[in-house]
């Protein structure tokens, strides 16, 4: 099973996403923003970082990268796509997911170990968890405040498309939303970093590994 990890100029957690994919048992394939070819991967991760510097809205330029056109098509065809942090922002800018990520309410970058309550286990990236399970993964961002209009928020909750809620909101996200999915459940965007909770030695534990084992199960 091959999981592609896109590197945009300014991607920072790309190697970490590759490591997480490997630890879950997949083959990690580096993908380049300027190359529209997905090189036969079965799933794609858009990693954290500051694509193209993110001096405009986060993810606003990455959305136009050649690789993104292919990924949007593949996602619409059902390929599992996970956007972490900056990747979540790119997915929103690409209209694969609704809403937007804005500046944290307190205006600071914040990094801490963050408890999350898993709210949807029907997605390609969360089927290894139990509904309501509380996991701890790091959150680290300056623009992670999830916003959408009330209609969209109601719809996400009604359709069980909120993937995870913050337990203790770190950035002012509406309704404590940490991650969401599309209708089909193959595209997931999550602000905290599951790829940084895959080894006891370097993270707050291994709670994040489930995202990567989930997709391997989904692809079988």
């Amino acid at each position, binding site marked *: 099973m091959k999981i592609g990890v896109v590197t945009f*100029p*300014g991607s*920072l*957690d790309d*190697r*970490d996403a590759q*490591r997480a994919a490997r630890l879950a048992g997949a083959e990690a394939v580096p993908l380049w923003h300027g190359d529209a070819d997905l090189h036969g991967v079965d799933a794609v991760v858009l990693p*954290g*970082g*500051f694509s*193209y*510097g*993110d*001096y405009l809205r986060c993810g606003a330029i990455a959305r136009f990268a050649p690789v993104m056109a292919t990924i949007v098509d593949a996602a619409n065809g059902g390929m599992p796509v996970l956007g972490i942090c900056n990747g979540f922002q790119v997915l929103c800018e690409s209209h694969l997911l609704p809403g937007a990520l804005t500046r944290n*309410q*307190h205006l*600071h*970058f*914040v*990094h*801490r*170990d963050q408890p999350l309550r898993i709210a949807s286990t029907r997605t390609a990236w969360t089927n290894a968890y139990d509904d309501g399970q509380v996991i*701890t993964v*790091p959150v*680290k961002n*300056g623009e992670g405040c999830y916003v959408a209009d009330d209609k969209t928020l109601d719809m996400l909750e009604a359709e069980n498309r909120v993937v995870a809620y913050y337990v*203790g*909101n*770190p*950035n*002012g996200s509406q309704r404590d939303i940490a991650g969401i999915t599309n209708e089909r459940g193959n595209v997931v965007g999550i602000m905290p*970093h599951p*790829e*940084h909770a895959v*080894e*006891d*030695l*370097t*993270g*707050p*534990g291994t709670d994040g590994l489930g995202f990567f084992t989930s997709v391997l199960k989904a692809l079988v």
Partner: protein
Amino acid sequence: MIDTVKNAGATPDEPQPYADLGLQDDEYAKIKAILGRRPTQSELAMYSIMWSEHCSYKSSKVHLRQFGQIPKGDRMLVGMGENAGVVDVGEGLAVTFKVESHNHPSYVEPYQGAATGIGGIVRDILTMGARPILVMDPLRFGDADHPDTKRVFPGVIAGIGGYGNCLGLPNVGGEVVFDPSYQGNPLVNALCLGVMPTDRIQLSAARGVGNVVVLLGAKTGRDGIGGVSVLASATFEEDGPANRPAVQVGDPFEEKLLIESCLELFDAKLVEGIQDLGGAGLTCALTETSAAGKSGMRAYLDRVPLREASMEPHEVLASESQERMLAIVTPENLPKVLAIAEKWGVLATAIGEVVEGDRLEILWNGETVVDVPPGSLADDGPVYERPTQRPADLDALQAKELPPYPEATKELLLAMVAGPNLCSRRWVTEQYDRIVLGNTVLAAPEDAGVVRLSEETGLGVALATDGNGRYTRLDPYAGAQLALAEAYRNVAATGAVPIAVTDCLNFGSPEDPEVMWQFAEATRGLADACTFLQTPVTGGNVSFYNSTAGTPINPTPVVGVLGLLDDVARRTPMGFRAEGDVLLLLGDTKDELGGSEWAWSQHRHLGGRPPQVDLAREKALAAVLVTAARDGLLSSAHDLSDGGLAQGLVEAALKNGVGARVALPAGLSPFVQLFSESAGRAVVTVPPSEEERFAELCAAQGLPCTRLGTTGGDALEVQDVLTVGLDALRVAHESTLPALFGPLAGASAALPAGPALPA
């Protein structure tokens, strides 16, 4: 009109503004003697920059030579003199690390000053051929409740975070100290460490006639002109900062691309020599590469891509625009170099070539504006043996009696751990990405940052920085040694073997004989201690002129110690972990409260003598901590320093929310035992089953080991003295900085308990 060499020859008596550029009369005369004529405007700019205190080390050189006498050991691959020292860590890997100051820019413009401080030190590490993998920041500010600290402190923290986070470098430690001595002159030091295969080391020498000089990275603008010659080499006057244009503006995204493109160039072996552009910009890069290669060089300055077309040659040479590197490449490799730069979207321009002879010639639209021997700029700058004089007030200061000792009470403990210098640094560290790259094993508030180098073998490094301006004010020789001893101890506490040192020496004006005496004493102390501990100095930085309106800062040598772990899985964390572990104090506690945090925070008292230095004891303590970690005897280890045993116990208890029951031994009063800052000490916990083996290990090293009690419960209890619940301690410890500088996270985020522990 552009001042050319021809014009300079024709107008020998034209008055030049050398004094405004910071050059002395005799220095200007020496330049004329070297050139046999008056310098051109561009040459004058170059000499003023290269002969500035910041670039030439003219006042410190005679003292820094002592560091060269310290035995190198067998690990040092590149020593002082290059951009950063390189240390062999085995398994075919080498690391390079260095700490630098960006003090004055950070006072003028806190965010950009601190941000570009990170950018600059990262390029120093990159230029050695290494991938930067971590940063740390030792910081000093004025009083925490001073109004201007509200401007400087949050700006500096945001700048460090803004730049480092965007570069994808974990910030794994550092220090924050508040003291009025830094009110008009904060210290913003930045440390970076990088790793590389030993065969990828790059040097700066430009060699090979016909090789091409390529400028990589950002366009050159008018920002930062005068940064090193004016800002870093003179003191602030009373009316405060006015040199805002002399501060550079950073673009971390550009730097990230520069890092990736340079590493790709190194791996493809396309670079003959490389030099970063930092303070002194192109001036420094062109002269250092040609001087190091003993080569001639010709540069066409009009080819440098500019942000502003109206820039004149001396401005292009003096600009400190960030995110630039200078590479020397063969003509055959040039197309490949340009292609890799283009892949990363990095601007690359051939601006010159290595030529026969030994002159650096710089042309501007076909006319020669600079024609100098590069060595005269880089190596032949003035060297001063500045007069030194023991401070007139030192005897009185050392004789000053301490306030009467109080009882050790719960109230005193809570007040101490809530003080700005001892309170939790969460407000700071939560603004830093501490885990990007996925190799951070320990980060602040742990004793040292520990980062994995190899996923296969677990090889890793530990790094700590320390410094205590109060101790150094009271006794510069001992103060510098105590800074080294503390960083050494912090590294050993994680289980790492300390192997090398970098230092950032922050002092007042070298023209003040009393400051120069402090500097001479501190360097002598540091060199002696490094020799004894067998930790050679690999490089560092001197920052003079840290004074405001004639009053110097407390002399503050900041020392960074590098340690090595064969397997990071064996590292020792600082926090108590399990119920029922045995709590032990290693080392001796004496009545040593001179210069202490208690005297300062409770009485604004600075006087007496700092704690005694016992380097043999430090060595024995480190040997025990390292061996015990390797043998898996320890549950936790935490060094004791500022705030003494009380602070150490509180930090270790709060880390994971595990309390302790302590019975202090007979002898010294509970107050002294809890708050004395005697060096050479640590608190450790061991499972009861390992107590005997651990005691034998201490006995073998002659290290005193005192049983203090056991871990467990949700309070810190010191029998017959005080009992405080961990919740109360946590509120006291964590509320101070948010109360002063605003809450970090939304109101809904309550103070969490310590993280759950893996089973």
